[in-house]
């Protein structure tokens, strides 16, 4: 069982690094939802179904909704890179 937990935690950390490294903002939002997805399964394995349900509802549903809506509002939804070329080159990667 511990290997599934290890796989999930590894996924979580890799997705968290991907959030900071990926250039496209929508891809970063998808990676954020992956972090909370893995986290909710970890919470279930840690015998905390209440917390897992909150994390699933908030992290997978509401947070993605809010982030996607504000990306739309900000006009940062471009498929390729960022809106401003000079930021796309150096500003996005943290």
């Amino acid at each position, binding site marked *: 069982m511990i290997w599934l937990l290890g796989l999930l935690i590894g996924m979580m950390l890799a997705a968290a690094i991907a959030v900071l490294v990926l250039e496209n903002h929508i891809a970063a939002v998808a990676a954020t939802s992956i972090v909370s997805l893995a986290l909710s399964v970890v919470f279930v394995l840690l015998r905390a*179904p209440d917390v897992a349900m*909150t994390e699933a*509802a908030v992290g997978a549903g509401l947070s993605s909704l809010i982030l996607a*809506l504000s990306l*739309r*509002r900000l*006009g940062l939804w471009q498929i390729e890179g960022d809106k401003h070329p000079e930021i796309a080159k150096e500003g996005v990667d943290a």
Partner: protein
Amino acid sequence: MRNLTSLLFAAGLAFFLLVIAARFDLGAAPMLVGDAILQEAPAETGAANIVTSVVLGYRGIDTLGEIAILFTASLAAGLVLGRRRPEASRDADSGAVLQISAQLLFPLLLVVGFYIILHGHLTPGGGFQGGVILAAAFFVPLLARPGTSVNHTGLSLVEGLAGAGFILIGLLALFQGKAFLQPLLDKGTLGMLVSAGTLPLLYLAVGLKVGAELAGLLANLADSEVDP
């Protein structure tokens, strides 16, 4: 230079947290409060879900503060975002698939949300999770047809009445000579739907309030002109 100090900060934080983690053995922490609550909660509140009895029974006033924080955040977000101009362009409607699936999904999400809220004292779930689902249910049609108008007055009414109901239930206990937000009514049998006194009513109020707040927040965020 700046990156170096940042990395140094991150390394220091990691070291600090690792020292904390090394001192805690897994499961060896003395859970004095937790053990006392686990022993007393089923008899004292009648809720099968002990997390619910902690959230609403032992820490009810904390939950009141929490919904106040959520209310303030959604109010401030609405104030900062402002209203859209009526002549601003809207997004186009989505395709037929999303419109039809939104119609199918709306009653389903509504039922799931109320199920989660009303069974908060028996199974995992409760007002916050169910409220999020209710907000999503009311937002899905708006996602399919961005032109749909939102009844902000109705949302404010539901939100205000739910918040007032929560405080009213708390005050009723005060009038009977008990502590604020102390559970009232009959405890019932453990594990039945009608049990645990006023806890399901409190969770219903929390769920309606959270749902209305988040639906208003999402509508504010979506119903605005897209910047060029």
